[in-house]
C-alpha cells in the first residue's frame, strides 16, 4: 500500500501543466532522435541537457524531460529499421530483421503499429517491475560476478546461429569479424593499445554507432548508386503501405511473444553492463527458438519477430533504471548520462536515493507512465505519416539518408576521423552485401566482444588463473546449461533428425513408386 501512496504522490508531482508539456516535448523530440540514424537515446538525452539547464528546470522537471526523450528514442529507433532497413540506434537493429521484410510485403503500417504496441507493453510492464521489484532485483544484479557475466555473453553469442536465417558459416564469419573489430583500442586489463597503429582516435575502440550507420545506412546508399541506371526508382515506389493497424488476430498471435520478451528484456536491462541491445537481441533469438523451430517464418516478415525485439528493448530501458535508481550504477549508456544529470542537480544517486529523495524517484516513475501513454497515443496515429517515407523516390531519399548519416555522426563526435571510419564501414557493408554476409552479427560481435573478453579475463585473474572458476556458481552453471541445451544441441540433433527424416521420405518415395 505504501507503494501506491508513494506513486500517487509521484503523480501529484508529475501532473502539472509544465511537466506534461515537458513530457510531450521530450516524447516528440525523442521519437525523432531515435528515428534518425546516428542519434540514439544517449546522445538525444545529452543534447537536451543544456536545454534543461537553460530553462532553469528543477530536478524533477529536468528528469521528466530527459526520461521522456529516453523512452521516446527507444520507440523511435524502430521507425527507420522497419521502413528503410537502417536501424536508428543499436537496440533497434534486431527490428530490421523482420520489420523490413514486413514493409516490403506491404505491411509497413501494421509493422509500425505493432511495434508501437509492443514497445508500449514492454515499457509499461517494465515500469511496474521497477516500482515493485527494484529492491529485490538489485540482489539479482549482485549475483552476477565476472564469471556469470561471461557465461551470459557466451550464451548470447551462441544464439547468433539463430539470428541469421540462411548460411550459418557466413554468420559465423560475420560474428568473428565483429569480434575482431571489438579488439581495437586500449586493453583495459593491461593498459596496452591494440590495433591502434599509434592513432589516438582508435584508443577508445570503434564507436558502435559509427559502425552501424556505415554498415547499414551508407552501404544502402552505395547499393543505390550502383543500380541508379537500372530500375531502382521503380521498385521501391511500388511498395504498398497497406493497412495502418494490425488485425486483432495478429495482436492475439503476438501477445505471448510480447510478454515473454518483456520479461527477458527487463532482466537484461537490470544487469549493469548488459543493457538494451542485449535485451532486444536475447528476446528475438529466444522467441525464434521457441515459436519458429524450423526457421521458416522469422527473418521473412513474421510479426512476432517485430514484437519480440521491440518489447525486449523497451523493457530493458525500464530495467536499466533499476540499478540506476537503486544502486547509482548505470545499466546502460543512457542511464549513465541521466546519472550525471542527477549529480549536477545535487542529488546523490545510490542505495539511499529512494529514502532521501522520494519526490524525485516517484515523480520520475509517474513521468514514465505518462510518457508511455503519450508515446502510444502519439505513435499510432503518426504511423500514416511515417509510412509516407516509403513513397519518397530513392533518388531523393538516398541523398537525404547520406546527409543525415554524415551530419548525425559528425554531430555526436565532432571528429572527421569518425566520418572516414563510417565511410570505411559503408564500403565494407557494400562488399559484404554482395557476398550475402549478414550484417547484424558484425555489430553484435563488436558490441558483445569487449564485455565478453573483459569479464573472462577478470574472472580468471580474480581466481589466479583457475579456469574452473567459470563454472563455479549455480548461476553460471545454469547459464551454460541453457546455452548448450538450448542452442548447441539443437544444431547437432537437428541435423541428425533431418537426415533421418530425409531417409524416411526416401523410403516412402520408393514405396510410392
Amino acid at each position, binding site marked *: 500500500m505504501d507503494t501506491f501512496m508513494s506513486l500517487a504522490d509521484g503523480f501529484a508531482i508529475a501532473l502539472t501543466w509544465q511537466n506534461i508539456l515537458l513530457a510531450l516535448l521530450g516524447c516528440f523530440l525523442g521519437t525523432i532522435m531515435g528515428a534518425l540514424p546516428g542519434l540514439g537515446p544517449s546522445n538525444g538525452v545529452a543534447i537536451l541537457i543544456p536545454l534543461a539547464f537553460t530553462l532553469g528546470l528543477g530536478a524533477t522537471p529536468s528528469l521528466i524531460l530527459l526520461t521522456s526523450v529516453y523512452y521516446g528514442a527507444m520507440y523511435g529507433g524502430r521507425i527507420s529499421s522497419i521502413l528503410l532497413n537502417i536501424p536508428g540506434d543499436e537496440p533497434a537493429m534486431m527490428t530490421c530483421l523482420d520489420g523490413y521484410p514486413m514493409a516490403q510485403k506491404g505491411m509497413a503500417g501494421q509493422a509500425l503499429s505493432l511495434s508501437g504496441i509492443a514497445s508500449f507493453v514492454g515499457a509499461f510492464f517494465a515500469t511496474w517491475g521497477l516500482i515493485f521489484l527494484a529492491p529485490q532485483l538489485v540482489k539479482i544484479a549482485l549475483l552476477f560476478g565476472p564469471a556469470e557475466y561471461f557465461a551470459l555473453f557466451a550464451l548470447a553469442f551462441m544464439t547468433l546461429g539463430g539470428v541469421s536465417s540462411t548460411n550459418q558459416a557466413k554468420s559465423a564469419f560475420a560474428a568473428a569479424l565483429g569480434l575482431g573489430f571489438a579488439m581495437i583500442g586500449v586493453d583495459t586489463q593491461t593498459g596496452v593499445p591494440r590495433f591502434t597503429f599509434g592513432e589516438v582516435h582508435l584508443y577508445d575502440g570503434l564507436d558502435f554507432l559509427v559502425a552501424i550507420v556505415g554498415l547499414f545506412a551508407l552501404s544502402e546508399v552505395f547499393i543505390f548508386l550502383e543500380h541508379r541506371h537500372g530500375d531502382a526508382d521503380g521498385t521501391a515506389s511500388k511498395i504498398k503501405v497497406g493497412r495502418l493497424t494490425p488485425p486483432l488476430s495478429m495482436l492475439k498471435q503476438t501477445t505471448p511473444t510480447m510478454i515473454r520478451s518483456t520479461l527477458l528484456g527487463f532482466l537484461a536491462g537490470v544487469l549493469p553492463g548488459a543493457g538494451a541491445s542485449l535485451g532486444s537481441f536475447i528476446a528475438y533469438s529466444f522467441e525464434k527458438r521457441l515459436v519458429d523451430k524450423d526457421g521458416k517464418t522469422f527473418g521473412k516478415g513474421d510479426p512476432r519477430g517485430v514484437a519480440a525485439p521491440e518489447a525486449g528493448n523497451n523493457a530493458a530501458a525500464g530495467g536499466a533504471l533499476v540499478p540506476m535508481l537503486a544502486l547509482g550504477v548505470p545499466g546502460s549508456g543512457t542511464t549513465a548520462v541521466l546519472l550525471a544529470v542527477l549529480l549536477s542537480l*545535487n542529488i546523490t544517486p545510490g542505495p539511499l536515493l529512494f529514502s532521501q529523495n522520494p519526490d524525485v524517484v516517484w515523480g520520475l516513475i509517474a513521468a514514465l507512465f505518462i510518457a508511455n501513454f503519450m508515446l502510444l497515443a502519439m505513435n499510432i496515429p503518426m504511423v500514416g505519416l511515417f509510412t509516407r517515407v516509403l513513397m519518397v523516390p530513392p533518388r531523393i531519399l538516398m541523398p537525404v539518408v547520406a546527409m543525415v548519416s554524415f551530419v548525425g555522426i559528425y554531430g555526436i563526435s565532432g571528429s572527421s576521423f569518425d566520418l572516414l571510419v563510417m565511410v570505411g564501414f559503408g564500403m565494407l557493408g557494400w562488399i559484404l552485401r554482395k557476398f550475402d554476409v549478414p550484417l547484424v552479427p558484425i555489430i553484435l560481435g563488436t558490441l558483445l566482444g569487449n564485455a565478453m573478453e573483459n569479464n573472462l579475463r577478470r574472472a580468471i585473474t580474480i581466481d589466479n588463473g583457475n579456469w574452473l572458476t567459470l563454472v563455479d556458481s549455480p548461476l553460471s552453471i545454469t547459464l551454460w546449461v541453457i546455452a548448450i541445451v538450448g542452442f548447441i544441441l539443437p544444431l547437432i540433433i537437428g541435423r541428425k533428425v533431418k537426415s533421418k527424416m530425409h531417409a524416411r521420405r526416401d523410403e516412402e518415395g520408393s514405396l510410392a513408386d
Partner: protein
Amino acid sequence: MIIKATRLTVAAALLGASTFGAFAEGFTPENPECIAPANPGGGWDFTCRQVGKALQDLGLIEKTMQVVNLAGGGGGVAYAEVVNKRADDNDLIVAASSATATRLAQGAFPGNTMDQVRWLASIGADYGVIAVAKDSDIADLPALLEMIKTDPRSVSVAGGSAVGGWDHLKVLIAANAYGIDDVRTVKYIAFDGGGEAVTQLLAGSVQAFTGDISEAKGFVDSGDIRVLAVLSPERLGGEFAEFPTAKEQGVDAIGANWRGFYAPGDMSDEAYDAWVSKIADLYATPEWKEIMANNGMAPLDLQGAAFETFVSESVAQIQAISKDIGIIK
C-alpha cells in the same frame, strides 16, 4: 579545531585575493566554450557543465558556456585537437583531471606533452579511498596491505580505471608506502567505471575497492561498504571526517584526483589571466563550496603558475611509479 581555523583563514584570504583579481579583468570571452574530452556522463563532462552553469549563474560569464563532448583516446583526441587546431583560441577551456596527467606522464597521448597547453586552475580534488564490503574481516588499511604483502594472490582489488590508470596507481602508491617492494604483484581488476567496481565489491567477487570518494559516498551512506582509508593529507571536513586517513594508520600515501582546466597553448596572456581569475572567483563563492560538499570534493585551490607547477610535479611522480610497475620504460 586548529586545522579548521587555519582552513577558514586560508579561505578568507583567498576570498580577499580573488575579489582583487576581479578588478583586473579586461577580457570577456565572446563565445565561452568548454571541451569535455569524454562522452556525456563522465567526470570531465560534469566538470564542464557544472562550472559552466555556476559561472553563468554567478554572472561571471555573460553567455551560456557551450559544452562540447570530444571523446576519444582517454582525452588524447581533445588534447591533440587543442594543440594542433585551436592553439590560439581565447574562448576555450578544456576539462582535465589526474587522468589527463597520468596519460601525459605515460606518453599515452602520442606526440603530446604537458607544456603544449596552458594550465589554468583547479576546482577541487576528489581524494582516493580504499574500501571493503561492510561484512569484511579486514579491519583497517595495514591489515589489507599485510594480506597483500604475505599472499598477493588472496586479495583482488577492483577499480574503475584501466590498468595503469589513476585508480590502479592509487592502490600502488599505498602498497609502496607500506613497504611492498614489487608493487606489480598487487592484483588489480579493471572495471568500466567506479560504479561497476563497487557493485562487484558488494557481490563479493573482489575483496577491496579503490576509487574516488564521490563514487563511494552513496554506498557508505547506506552502510554497504566500509572505508578503510582516505588518501588525503589530513581528515576531510563535514560528513567525511569520520574516515581515517592512510597517514594516521602509518601508511604515508596521498592520492588526489584533482579536477581542473587547461587552455590552448597560444592563448593571450590577457585571456589567460581573465579565465584564471574567473575560476578563482568561482572557487571562492559559497555556492561552489556547496557544490563541492555535495559531491565529496575536497579543497584544492591552485591557479595560474601554482597550478602549472602542481601538474608538472604530479606528472613526474606518476612517471616514477609507472616506471616501477613497468608500464613505461
